[in-house]
Structures are given as C-alpha cells and as structure tokens.
C-alpha cells in the first residue's frame, strides 16, 4: 500500500490514487477550519469571509485592527490576565499532587489500587457539565463559588488525571534499583527523589503539567458556573463573544491560540523524544 509495485493492475493503480485523494480530503477537513481563521483574522472589514480585496491580495484588504482591538480592549485584556492567573496555579497544584500520587500508585503493593485509580481518573470521565453542576451546588454551599480559589481548585482537579497518566507512563520504564542504589550510598528519600527519580521522570511530569495547563487554559464549562465576573477567563470571554455579539476580534484571539497550540505541540514532541532517549527506548 505504501508504494505501488510496478506490476500493479490499472484497477489497483486507480484505487491507490483514489484512496490517497480521499485521505488528502480528510486531512484537509481536519486542518482547514483551523488554518482558515488565520488569514480571516487579518480582514480589514468586520466580515467573517474573504472580501474581494482579500482575494485579490490587495494590501488594503488586510489589517491588524482585530489584533489591536484584542491588545487594547480592557475586556479581553482582563480575561487574558485572569487566564494567566488561574491556569499556572491550577497547573502547579495538579502537577505536585498528581506526580506524588503517580509515584505512590506505581509502587508494587498498593491496597485498593483499582478503586483508588478509578476515583483519581474520574474527573476525566465525568462529563464536564455534570462536574460543573455538582461543583456549583457544593461550592456555593461552602462559600467557594465565585472565588479565585474555587475556580483554581476545580481546574486543578480536572487536570490531575492527565498528570497521573503521563507520569505513570514514564514510571513504567523506571528502574527501581536506582532508588535502592542511591539509598545504599546514604542518600535520604528526599535527596533520592530530587537527584535520581525526578530527572528521569521529568519529561512525563512536564508533559502532564502541559496537559493540566491546557485543561485549565481551555476550560469554559466549569468556570462559567463557578466563576463570577471577576474570574472571567479568555475562553469565557470567547464563549460570550460567540453566543451574543460575534465580533471579529475572536478570530484574532483564535489565531493567537492556534499559534500557542503549535508551540505546545512542538514542546511535547521534543519531550517525548527526550524521554525515550533517557529511558533507552528506541522509537519503534
């Protein structure tokens, strides 16, 4: 299938190319909607489609005014600031708790392992709207609804399953005799953890942290219910913008976020390769 042998019949030849065209169309479907918003965001008009000037590649049809709006409009700036206030704290909380738990879970003897695992993974499985509803009722009862820490805790708990999964994956290849070797040479548990274990599982921890960050940074359902106006995040502002008065600034924000995800994707890929090298796993 990968390359066509010279003895292929005309029918096989036709199918080979048809199949490639079909796959090409599907790849187009996957990336076109994401990439098309980047040129659209430079529209000089407040339209959501290509104007004749844009199609003629006339410089007058393009402008950065939507970006200027994003960087000067106080609503958007406040939302951006809030997102960067909430996401790092939530990430830190999720990463620390998640990494410790993943190390605990990878020990050979853990009582009630499967029950604990099910509880710890549950934030990833339960539909967000249900989590949001439950948290809304419960957090208003204990006075956390509409507070910064309420949103941070909710986002942190939603991010922990990703940290557990990625860290557990790196721990699978971890050689426990390294810990024993360190201990036999007189290192305490804390020294052993930071000097021996941490450097080896770091790629998993960092990619778990990235997942936790993106979970919080991209989360809108929970924050819609739990947050008050002073916790309005970027996705929340986008959600309002899309539901009420759809403004072209959204396209500028969306384009910036696409670039951000490309950066993130690259970092993750580099980490994955590093982790494989460190653990001596050769890419299949």
């Amino acid at each position, binding site marked *: 299938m990968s390359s066509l042998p010279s003895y292929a019949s005309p029918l096989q030849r036709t199918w080979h190319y048809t199949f490639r065209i079909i796959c090409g169309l599907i790849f187009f479907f996957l990336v076109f909607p994401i990439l098309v918003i980047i040129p659209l965001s430079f529209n000089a008009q407040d339209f959501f*489609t*290509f104007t004749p000037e844009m199609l003629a590649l006339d410089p007058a049809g393009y402008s950065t005014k939507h970006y200027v709006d994003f960087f000067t409009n106080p609503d958007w700036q406040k939302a951006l600031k809030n997102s960067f206030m909430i996401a790092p704290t939530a990430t830190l909380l999720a990463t620390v708790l*998640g990494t410790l738990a993943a190390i605990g879970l990878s020990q050979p*003897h*853990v009582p009630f392992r499967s029950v604990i695992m099910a509880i710890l993974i549950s934030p990833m499985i*339960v539909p967000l709207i249900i989590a949001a509803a439950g948290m809304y009722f419960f957090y208003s009862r204990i006075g956390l609804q509409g507070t910064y820490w309420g949103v941070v805790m909710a986002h942190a708990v939603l991010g922990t399953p990703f940290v557990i999964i990625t860290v557990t994956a790196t721990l699978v290849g971890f050689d426990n005799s390294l810990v024993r070797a360190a201990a036999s040479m007189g290192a305490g548990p804390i020294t052993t953890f930071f000097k021996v274990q941490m450097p080896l599982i770091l790629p998993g921890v960092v990619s778990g942290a990235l997942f936790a960050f993106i979970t919080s940074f*991209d989360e809108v359902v929970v924050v819609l219910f739990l947050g008050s106006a002073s916790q309005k995040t970027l996705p929340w502002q986008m959600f309002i913008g899309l539901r009420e008065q759809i403004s072209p600034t959204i396209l500028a924000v969306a384009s910036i976020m696409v670039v951000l995800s490309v950066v993130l994707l690259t970092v993750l890929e580099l980490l994955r390769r590093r982790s494989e090298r460190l653990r001596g796993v050769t*890419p*299949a």
Partner: protein
Amino acid sequence: MTQLDMPAQAPVLTQDGRPLKASLSRALRREKLRAFVLILPLLAFVLLTFAAPIVDMLLRSVDNSIVPQTLPRTVVALELWDPQTDELPEEPAYAALVEDLREAVAQKMHTRLGSRLNYEQSGFSSLMRKSGRAVETISGSDVKGQLIAADSAWADPQIWRTLKLYSGTTTKGYFLSALDARQTLDGVEMLPEGERIYLMLFGRTLMMSLTITLLCALIGYPVAFLLAQLPMRTSNMLMILVLLPFWTSLLVRTSAWKVLLQQQGVINDMLVWIGLISDGNRLVMMNNATGTIIAMTHILLPFMILPLYSVMKTISPSYMRAARSLGANDWTAFWRIYFPQSVPGIGAGAVLVFILAIGYYITPELVGGTSGIFISNRIAYHISSSLNWGLAAALGALLLIAVLVLFYVYDKVVGIDNVKLG
C-alpha cells in the same frame, strides 16, 4: 552461620534477631503505608473538590426536605386525611398550614417552597405568595373559611393532594420529571405524547452521538490505515495534521466552524462561487443539528484516529502478504484478514468518542440552535435560568449513569491503564 545448625522447624531469623517472616511483613506494611501516604493528598483533594460535589448533586436529585421543614405541622395534620376522597381536609390542617406559613413568611421560605411545589403543579408559586400575605390577617376561628376566602385554590382538593404527595423528605419527583413522567394518586403515569421533552432530548443526544461516532469511524479509518502503512518519517509528518486539531482550543475550533458555516460564511461563498448553489438559497448549516454534527465530528475525530492508529500499528503486514500469496485479492485480504484485527481499535475509538459526545455542552450551545442541542444544554438551562436545581441534578444523574455504564464497557474492552495521551 548459626542458622544452618538450627532444626528445620525453627523460624528463620534476620540479622537483628527478628523472625524473617515478621520482618518481611513489617517491610511490606511500611511499603504499603509509604505508597498510601504519597497517594493520600491527591485522593483527599479529589474526594473533596470533585467526588463530594457529585455525591451532593446526586442527593439533591431526590431531596425534598424543604416541604417537611417548612410545613412540619401541616405534614403531620395531613397524615389523617385520605387524598382519595374529594373532600377537603378538616379545620386542623388549615390551622396548621396557617401557623407553618406564618413562620415561613418570617424566614422568607414560603416563596422558595412555592417554586419547589410549582414544579409539580403550576399555580403553587402564586398561591404561596398570596397566602403568605394573607396569613398576617387571619385570626380567630374558621381559619379554613378565611384561607379559602384569601385564595380559592385552597378549596381545590388537587392542591392538597399534591401537598400530601410531596410531603416526604425524599422524592422521586425530579427523576420522574426527567423521564417525562409524573406521580399521581394511582401511581406513576407518563406525560401526554406532546409534552415529553426530556425523553426526546435523551433520544436525540443518543442518536446524534451515535451519528457522530459513526462518522468519525468512517472518516477516521482510512486516515489511520494510511498512517499505519506509510513509513515512519512520512506518517510522523502527517500525524501533525491530526494532532494540531487535537491540541487546538475547543473554542477556537467551534468559532472556526461558526465562521465557516454561516450563511454569509466561507463555505457558502465558495459553493455560490463555483455555482453549485444560487446566491438566493444559501445552505443553512448552522443553528441546527447539521451544524452540531459537522463541528463535533471534526472536534472528536482525533479521538478516533489515535486509538485506531495505535491498534493498526500492531497488525503485522505479513498476514496480508500471506493472504495475497494464497490467492486472495486486495479486497478479500483486507476484509477477511486486516479488518477483523483492527476491530478492537474501532471499539476503543468509538466508545471514547461516544462518551465524550453525549456529555458535550459548548459546541451544541454555540452552533446547535434549538434543534441541535443536547441534554447537557438542558441541564445548564435548569441550573442557570429556570433554577430548577433538583431537575438539573436528576438529569445529570441519568447522564452520569449512562457515561459510567459506557466507561465500564470501555474499561473491559481497552482498560483504563491503557489510556495513552498524544
């Protein structure tokens, strides 16, 4: 050294003189404790910030304590009354009600009670408000007559029947409403055909999620197949095209579709330009089920391709070659040899996409209009607009059960431990 000289039945000792067995079990206990101490902070955190809210919500879906708490005397007085008769309760019940209402008005609980009972029978909300004002002036004997004079609804046995029916601390009422049924004196009965909105919404959520899953499988299969066949270098490059949407913000993808699918949007413009449709009848692809299905298929497609790809990667190409050498044509070799081996991948991807789809909220809310919304949107509506939290909780509980059952299936087919990311 000395151990060798001991009789065989004597316990083996460690260097510090303890029996080896005890020493080993002590070490095991300490190891278990160490693991548990590491897990405990997160476990406590998840239980407190996530599990407790969910349990709280489940309890709320059956909670009816507001009625016996606000009207304690009335509930007791009504115990003697037979709701099957067409007769009104006696004077003591009315007196108890007036007394309860006076206290409720002082605590401003009567309006909340009114809205609670209004979910079961409309009219209760205004009745409670009106009676709350009236109880101030009621005094002396014939409380029954005075209350009925204040609001004639109190002369309707149906009002009293509802009150008696919902006087317990727990209720099935919300779950029945969530299933388009209601409690009557003769048991549970379904609402008339035209009023069954929730069953219709559950049905639609299932049907649309199924459609989306099917589309994802159909579209995802060829791509995963191609990626699994190509040499590593090429397939890694093409994989970026799958991972880019996976990593892009959900709201970005939803806004992209909102922009593309508009009647004045890029897709309609393109179709008009190539002359497939005329400018007058541009396609309506948004604010309906079509919009939701297109956008969600795109958003969930990577969740189908990634598990499919990882299964297909493990299928050895020599099986196909063997089939070909034994005289099977391309199609037979694929259908009889390759496809059955890729079925676990389809299963894993399909369950994953389906679980994610039935709980979706954002995309249906933004591109679904009214005919493309899911049960989640109704839950959100009841939390933030109609404030019928009990019903929201009951709908949420039903959705949660559906997801947990599916997840159980997923765990049996794939296993939670095998979940991989990126």
